[in-house]
Every structure is written in C-alpha cells, then in structure tokens.
C-alpha cells in the first residue's frame, strides 16, 4: 500500500516575469516500509520534492497524499500538527538547537504532545538509546561530533514515532565511515522499526542502502531503479 502518493505535481517559482518550473508532472507512489533514495543533479528539484512530501511546502498543481492525508490546501496550523505526528525530518546540517542539550533537542517535538513529563523523558531516553547516544544526553550540540549531532537529529526525528522519515543529504557533511554508521542506523530504523524512509543523496554508495533509487532531472522523474 502506498504511504506516499503524488499525482500531477507541478512546482513553479515566479520571480517577476520569470517563471522557473522546478517540478514538472511528477507522479510518484512510495510504499509503506520502503527505503527510497532520491538522486539527481544539483538544482533538479530533490529538496523541493522532499518538502512537498513532508508538508512544509505546497505544489503549484497536483495532489499530495501522505499517510492517507491530502496535504494540498491544508492550513498552516493543520499541517504543523500533521507533521508533528507523521513526519521525521533529518537535514544535512543537523539543524539542532545549539542552546539545548542533546536530550532536550530530542524532546522538542514531544512538547507538542499531551504526554506527561515522565512519558516524554522515557521516550527521549529510548530514542537516544536507539541512536546509541544515551551517554551524551547532557551534551550540547557544540560538544558533539558531526556524526553524533546527526544521531541526535535522528533521535529527534523518531521520538514522536512518525511513519515517514525524510532525509535531505543526511550524510552530506560526514566522512565515509561516519556516513556508513548513519546509513546503517537508517537501515535499522527501516527494517526493525518499519519506518518509511525517503532520502536525498548525491552519493551512489549511500543510495545503495536504499531499496529503490529515484532519479530526478530538470524537475522530472527520469528513472526508477529497483
């Protein structure tokens, strides 16, 4: 069953009289539990596509259904609530809050839930355990290595137990070995925890961890490699 279903997606940016067609006629289905790598040259629209699936951007035309929810036309508030329950975001530059400890960064999305403080603490602990950083809970991002920061970011992405993880070049800033550790972690999340993962990457080795590879070029899906 498709957890992500995009139909007839166009994304056009207008600047003055100039229009840039960033995405053109995208139709895409991603099954629940899939691990998809999205590749393509710089500027081909990968991030834009990911943002549409994650509900932080809206298409110019077309329909975006994720987890059974039509995202097109949803209000900003409804989208925010929906994201907090359904999507985990992992960015290339980790995007942790520098003033908060690892633990608090991870706990951040739980502030939006009705969970008790004890439940939030428990969930945060589990998330940190999964990424193998329970001993760094009290450290601030500035005191952690890049790989460790990305683990914290992954813990934050999974702490509210969303079905879909969206990763925009999650290993782009990491060396080979650290990148592999992160990719292994993503595989575990996919295999053992059933997360559907959509990952943008430029690195074919990283893409090889995925079940499918999608390729974007100039705003169009050009091929789908099994």
């Amino acid at each position: 069953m498709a957890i992500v279903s995009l139909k007839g997606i166009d994304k056009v940016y207008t600047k003055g009289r100039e229009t840039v067609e960033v995405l053109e006629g995208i139709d895409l289905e991603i099954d629940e539990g899939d691990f998809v790598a999205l590749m393509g040259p710089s500027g081909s629209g990968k991030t834009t596509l990911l943002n549409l699936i994650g509900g932080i951007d809206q298409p110019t035309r077309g329909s975006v259904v994720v987890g059974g929810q039509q995202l097109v036309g949803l209000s900003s508030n409804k989208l925010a609530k929906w994201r907090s329950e359904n999507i985990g975001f992992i960015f290339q530059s980790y995007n942790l809050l520098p003033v908060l400890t690892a633990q608090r960064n991870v706990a951040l999305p739980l502030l939006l839930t009705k969970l008790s403080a004890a439940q939030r603490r428990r969930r945060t602990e589990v998330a940190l355990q999964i990424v193998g950083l329970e001993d760094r809970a009290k450290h601030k991002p500035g005191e952690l290595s890049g790989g460790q920061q990305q683990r914290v970011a992954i813990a934050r992405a999974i702490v509210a137990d969303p079905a879909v993880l969206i990763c925009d070049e999650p290993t782009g800033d990491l060396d080979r070995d650290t990148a592999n550790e992160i990719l292994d972690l993503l595989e575990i999340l996919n295999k053992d925890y059933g997360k559907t993962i959509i990952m943008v990457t430029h690195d074919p080795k990283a893409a090889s961890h995925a079940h499918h590879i999608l390729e974007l070029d100039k705003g169009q899906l050009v091929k789908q490699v099994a």
Partner: protein
Amino acid sequence: MNKFSLIWSNLFRRKVRTFLILFSVLVAFLLFALLRTVAGAFEVGIDFAGVDRLNVSPKYSIIDPLPITHLNEIDRLEGVASITHQTWFGGTYQGLNNFFPKFPVNPRAYFAMYSEFEISDVHLEAFANSRTGAVVPESMARQYDWQVGDRIPIEGDIWLMADGGKLWEFDLVGTYTTGGEAGLSSAFLFNYDYFDEARVEQTQGLVGWFTVKVANPDEAAALAAEIDALFENSMNPTRSATEAEFTRQFASQVGDIGLMMNGILSAVFFTILLLTANTMMQTFRERIPELAVLKTVGFTDVAVSLLIMSESILLCALGGALGIGLAILVSDAIGPQVEAFFGTFRLSTATIGTGMAIAVLLGIVVGLFPALSANRLQIVDALRK
C-alpha cells in the same frame, strides 16, 4: 523539558549579550524606581499641605525676615482662626551630612496649628515649659539615636548668640509623629522664646514667616489679599498664599525636578527600548534557521511567535524586577538617613506596579516585530539560508 525551559535556554544563548541587556534594563528600572520615589516623596508633602492654612512670607526674599509685630496685626483680622510663626534656623548638627530643618516655634501654637502632628500632652508640656527644650520627629530621634534628656548641640550659621557664640544647645524633651506624610515639615523644633532671648540683640523680634489658619477655607484667597494689603506700604511687605500653594512655590523647583525626572526617564526608556529592540532583532535573525526547524517539527506559527514574545517579555520583566528589587534594597538602606528630609522614603506599591507594567510593556513592544516576523517565516525559505 517544558516550554519555559525552552524560552529560558534561548535567553542565554549569548550570555554576555543577555547580561549586558539585563543590566541595562536593570539600571533603567532602578533609576525609574528611585526617581519616582524621590518625586513621590515631594509630592506627598505637597498633597498633604493644609488647604485651610495660609503662609505669610516676606514679599521679596525668603531670607529677609519679618517683624513679629506683624503677628498681632494679622491676628486682629476677621477670618483668622489662629496664627503662629516659624523661622528658618539653618545650622548644622555634627557636620553638613546631617541635614534636617530646624525651626524655633511657639510650642503650643505650633502643634495647635499642625493638628496632624501628634505629640503627647506630657511632651508638649515639657516642650512649652523648658527654655532650651526641643522636640523632634520620632524617625529623626531614631536616626540620630537621641533619647529624651539628651543635649543636642547645633552650630548656628544664620543666627548667632548674643555673645557672638555659634554653639546652640538644646535639650530633647520629647518626640512627635508626623504620620510619615509630612514631607518637608518634619523638623527639629525648639522654643522661640529661648531663641529670641539668646540671639544677637539686633536680630531679636524677627521671624521667618507666619502660618495662619483661616476660619473659612473658601475665603482663604481673599484673606491672603487682605493681609498683603495690610503691609503693602510697610517696611516689610508680605506675600500670602495657601500652604498648598506655598509648598508648591517653595517646591516649584520640585515641579521642575518632576518634569526633569520624567524627561530623564523617558530618555532612559527610549534608549533601553532601542537597545533591547536591536538585540531582540539580532537574536531573531541569528535564529531564523532554528525557528524554521521548530516549525518543521510541528510548532505552529503562533507558537513560534509566542516563544519569541515570551523571551522578550521575560528578559524585560526580569531586568525590571531586578532593578526594582535593587531599588527596594537601596531605599531600605538609605531610607532612615533621608527620612527626616523626605518624610518617608520607601517604594510605593504604585511605583512597583507601574515599573513592572512598564517592564512588561517594554517586553511586548520590543518583541512585537521579531514575533511578527517569526510568525510569517516560511520554513522552506528559512531553511534555504
């Protein structure tokens, strides 16, 4: 973690900057609270000045005294309920630091005139019946640690003793209370009779001003005009005004002080406003990607702007509370020393309340623009930066 600790942590992202801002806000509110209290102390004196009392002072110069013979002439006028006189003694008690007004008065007439001052019959009798007797407000006795029976030396400057001596000695025979509201009137009082006998002969029979209780307050202005007319062509013309007006004239500088204080405070707050607004805006700009992340993980636009607004209010309220708190400590510390001059010198609840309200308002104004910008922030644009 809760939302408050999120706000709190953000406040201290740049510790030095936050402390500098906090300190500036603190100083501004310390200044506000102290200046308001000073102004308030003066205003209290003015507010409580009797409306049924006239002050008859020399027309041209406060320093130029009036002959005591005026007293009987005024007393004969219709509409005068009672009359007494006071004189500015000047003088110093153990150095210039110990400032308090000293007036030679007629004990019974004085306390009859100022019925709001409370003195026990025993003390009043003792005062009236001892030549060198003096009475002081309780707060003054406490401040200088005087006991009834103490001999208090005052070094004269305006008024010298007949033998040319400067040292006046008074025996403390009692205390009175001013109800804490008397402002400038809370004075060291001693017997006019002794003062008059003991001073240089040529200066005898001169007093500073008269205080007249009018039978009908509605006719106070008319009576004032009548008194002034009486002495118009004498050697010592007078100027009469109700005590409230007199106090206001005496303290017209006070009015200026009030105006000046408001000016200073406005300037201070304006500076603080710019300073904090600039800091909050700077903080906001630095955090655009973080705010986008908060929105990404599900914080609504309103939640993010409230976060910013709360930080701003917290920062200003904290600075305000610290400043006002410090002002309370300061006023507690220096209160006893200045009480003789100001009556009471304590932060009023109105000052504290106004101060905190201004602090919160400052926070709102300062946080408004960053909060609105945070509200409008588009995740996708912000993350691209």
